[in-house]
């Protein structure tokens, strides 16, 4: 590696909504002010970017002076909340124009917020939102199942530093997500067994 190398792009992790929403612990790996902030996944991985496909079920402009769009995007395990305002013009435009329900793919950055009651929630600041077909959404479900299982299988390895950090910061058994994976894949088999397009998820 030469020192002139440009910083590498962060990979987009695959994580189901149920795990994503549990992942409210964030950290940095350097003291540099501009160092990337990582979300810690309870299955033991760091995430600075995520990619997911699901069904946009609702959208609402929750901004006061400026447009600020909130979208609910549903996968077989739960709901991702995405927020896009003036600094995400492309994503905001998509949310303004899209008519739910619609299958969409989102690439974006995890963000955590503290709510009024002191609890933390995770949401996504989208870099891009694109309309996709159901085969893309199904492919994402299977891919995310595989990646999640990989993380769960590696969780017990002693050298897995993010798993150890997860144990310290969450009181969640990774096993919980194995069940989510099973039900996600089973839901897929049901949709492909039946008529498919009727089976769009609901909140």
């Amino acid at each position, binding site marked *: 590696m030469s020192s002139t190398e440009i910083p590498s792009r962060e990979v987009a992790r695959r994580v189901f909504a149920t795990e994503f929403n549990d992942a409210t612990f964030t950290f940095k790996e350097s003291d540099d002010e501009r160092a990337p902030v990582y979300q810690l996944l309870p299955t033991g991985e760091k995430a600075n970017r995520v990619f997911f496909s699901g069904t946009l079920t609702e959208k609402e402009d929750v901004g006061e002076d400026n447009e600020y769009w909130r979208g609910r995007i549903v996968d077989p395990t739960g709901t991702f909340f995405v927020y896009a305002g003036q600094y995400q013009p492309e994503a905001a435009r998509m949310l303004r124009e899209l008519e739910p329900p619609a299958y969409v793919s989102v690439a974006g950055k995890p963000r955590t917020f503290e709510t009024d009651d002191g609890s933390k929630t995770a949401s996504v600041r989208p870099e891009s939102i694109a309309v996709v077909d159901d085969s893309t959404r199904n*492919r994402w479900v*299977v891919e995310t199942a595989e990646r999640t299982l990989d993380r769960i299988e590696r969780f017990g390895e002693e050298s897995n530093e993010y798993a150890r950090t997860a144990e310290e910061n969450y009181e969640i058994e990774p096993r919980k997500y194995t069940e989510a994976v099973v039900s996600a894949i089973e839901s897929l088999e049901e949709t492909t067994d039946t008529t498919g397009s009727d089976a769009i998820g609901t909140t």
Partner: protein
Amino acid sequence: MSDLQTHAAAITAQFSEHLEIDEQDVKERLETVVDEYRIPPEEARRTVRNQYLEEADLDDDAVTTSGNEMVGVGTIETDESWIDVTAKVVELWEPQSEAIAQVGLLGDESGRTKFVSFETSDLPAIDEGEVYRFENVVTDEYQGNYSVKLNRTTDIERLDESIEVGDDTTTVQGALVDIQSGSGLIKRCPEDDCTRVLQNGRCSEHGSVDGEFDLRIKAVLDNGETITEVICNRERTEELTGITLKKAKQMAKDALDTTVVAEEMSEELLGSYYAVSGPELGRYVLADSIEPLGEPTETESVLIEARSI
């Protein structure tokens, strides 16, 4: 690099494993021999090398003529390393500058890499299709792409053998998560053999020129573990998006803006899965083919795996 500096670097590389050796000291010794004893640089190199052999208490064969590692050209991934390669001259290109004697592609089983030799190095010319052993070439990196530079100390020996050149074609799959700037309808420099993409109507080599329109997509594929940057040329871009160069020009004309083309392409391609195959060039895969992926195929096996945990 001056002549003596090159020799000094080569000697330093040869002895770095055997001695505490400093390139500047080597150069000074070479200069002494050349200046005071008026002997040619080649001979000076022998003399100084022998001095170091003695200091290291080594036999001549312990440090091979070059002392370098023999490296597959497709595996080069360090800058400024002194190496030896045995490779076939896959292609020779027309040099773009008077300083360059020869430029082209070398290939062996591991892949291909660009090479350059300079007029000042005064090396014998090499022929396309022939296999050579090159001792003492130095690697170079530019924007993540590696090449080798021949130099005055390079030993070139023609070999009577054939090499099957690997095509280092790779296949990657993933979600298309980003379309990078420089995609869509672009302009290239029209100068002979210059295909640089213009920035605000300017070529970095030829200045302000009347560019020629072309189509290109630079995309990022992400599979959740690694990312791959992919370049689609005009043909692949037209096949993939259905937007021909002619149509793209019309779109830009109607909108009085070339960026509409990349925007429309992004809207169509982002967020879906593709399989791309083609040769790797530095950090890019040049798409020979790019296919959208449909329904998942691993569903059953993933379910079995999940239930077994």
